[in-house]
């Protein structure tokens, strides 16, 4: 699974992308985020404040209960501020 981080979350995690292989019981965006946060303190700190981090699966916005599977591209980021 390819995970991406953007904006200040990228800075907090210390990288913009990584390949991860979560255990089989990680089936949703929310579960993936919690699993990733175990050994990524920057991510743990960010998700401690609810509603701050948004996600996308395969380049579409996704809620925490959206399914994830091997091979997916999953991105985490703060609310967008373009335009």
């Amino acid at each position, binding site marked *: 699974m390819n995970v*991406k981080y*953007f*904006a*200040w979350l*990228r800075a907090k995690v210390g990288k913009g992308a990584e390949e991860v292989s979560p255990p089989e019981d990680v089936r949703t965006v929310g579960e993936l985020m919690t699993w990733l946060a175990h050994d990524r303190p920057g991510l743990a700190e960010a998700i401690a404040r609810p509603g701050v981090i948004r996600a*996308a699966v395969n*380049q*579409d*916005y996704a809620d925490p209960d959206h399914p994830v599977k091997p091979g997916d591209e999953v*991105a985490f*980021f*703060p*609310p*967008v*501020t*373009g*335009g």
Partner: protein
Amino acid sequence: MIRVQEKPFDVGAELAALSEGRTDIGAVASFTGLVRDIADERSVGALTLEHYPGMTEKKLAEIEEEAKRRWPLKATLIIHRYGRMEPGEPIVLVAAASKHRAAALDACAFLIDWLKTKAPFWKLEEGDGEASWVDARSSDDEAAARWVPPARG
């Protein structure tokens, strides 16, 4: 047409190209966003736009398609830059062309309102010796929410 690019663009040339050689367009509405030297009372030396290559283009194309579904448009344009830019430089240009003005004006406002909340870009402001990520605005969510039901036009 959508374009995501690092280099500056020429608003006039882009708008001219939109209606060039066409005689079926009666109305062109456009919106240009520019870097300001002051934001939320802080001095801004430069702005860096980060984006999500691939998803950004996908979302902009969806926003353009939605505008074409809602209004009878002859042409649409979304250009958004990423990377570092200085005060006075253009960040984004959206435009909508139609037979009549109501569709062009409404579609133009729709394009920029939806882009603000749906296109994956993030602004980093440099100023007073430090850089800080810009917070999202609730007023942007409210502006986008105006367009949830189909609009006039």
